[in-house]
């Protein structure tokens, strides 16, 4: 019995140490990853509207609506990241609007952003009154995600669909022609 107690104590002690070291290594990463800091922006639709109205008139914006729980969204994220990097010098900016549930921001979204080291700007949209704001993004959007809006001062196109990189780049090029 005494032995068992000792073993148990050591086991817990051991795990405890491991946990702390895990925490430590995470904290080191926190410094590197922008989204584990507390600056993940959470907005309602009023707050999102600034992203839907060209802040910089010379830029083309690619707004992708996604969530960590949406498998097809997660699948296409790398293409948006690639687009953001490849076209950064051509005045293209990708914004990833997360529709993750507020209660899962800490438990799911932040770890996801950390793990995948996303470089595009991520904004969390928390606005339950979807019936009001969905038509403001596009009148034909049924509300299914993934969904993407590409716009500049010349035109706006909304896509309720998934993309691969080639399809996404092809669409973007339509905006860069002018």
């Amino acid at each position: 019995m005494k032995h068992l107690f000792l073993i148990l104590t050591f086991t817990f002690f051991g795990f405890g140490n491991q946990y702390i070291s895990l925490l430590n290594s995470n904290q080191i990463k926190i410094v590197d990853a922008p989204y584990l800091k507390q600056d993940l922006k959470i907005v309602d639709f009023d707050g999102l509207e600034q992203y839907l109205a060209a802040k910089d008139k010379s830029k083309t914006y690619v707004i992708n609506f996604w969530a960590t729980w949406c498998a097809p969204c997660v699948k296409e994220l790398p293409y948006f990241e690639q687009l953001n990097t490849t076209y950064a010098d051509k005045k293209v900016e990708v914004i990833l609007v997360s529709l993750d549930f507020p209660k899962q921001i800490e438990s799911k979204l932040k770890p996801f952003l950390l793990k995948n080291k996303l470089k595009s700007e991520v904004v969390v949209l928390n606005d339950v009154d979807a019936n009001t704001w969905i038509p403001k993004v596009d009148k034909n959007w049924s509300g299914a995600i993934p969904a993407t809006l590409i716009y500049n001062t010349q035109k706006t196109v909304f896509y309720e669909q998934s993309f691969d990189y080639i399809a996404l780049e092809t669409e973007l090029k339509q905006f860069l022609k002018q």
Partner: protein
Amino acid sequence: MKKIFKLTLVLVVIITVSAFTTKTNSTDSGYKIGDVATDFELENIDGNVVSLSDFEDAKGFIVVFTCNTCPYAVAYEDRVQGLNKKYADLGYPVIAIMPNNTTVKPGDNMEAMKTRAKEKGFTFPYLMDAGQDIYPQYGATKTPHVYVLQKEQKGNVVKYIGAIDDNYQDANAVKTKYVEDAVDALLNNKEVKINETKAIGCSIKV
């Protein structure tokens, strides 16, 4: 003079905007309000085949495209159950249909549907759109996606399309219960005031 300048500016903006009006790639197919909805023969979790025509005494239906794996659908499970409890006896039973391709989403296969229905004690049919040919006719694009139908002489007429209510996060914070309002109106021989709403949902997996 300043006013004229301002007006001209506004006009130019309007013309520019309308010249580049938003094009959309989403499909516009599917039912509109007033269309007659198709009946179907789909397998239920109990192994039986269910059709709308089986419900001889029904005055209409609350058809819910839903699934096990979508967090939005899950958030609404208890509320869908509540709709059936409230309206089945009044003549508007819930008919739930799982539209996803189960190869893409194994968590929505028949076994998983049975398990989920048992866990949650579903009192309504939970059918599988195995051929994936019913949801496109309705025009459902996501889960959950609701169609309230009223039985009329020409068939089951679509009276409401959209969301269950206006707060997926918190059932207690709901301000407008769209589906309940629609069914209540139909039960009282009134027009459905809000007959189409939008909500976020998981795209149906093809």
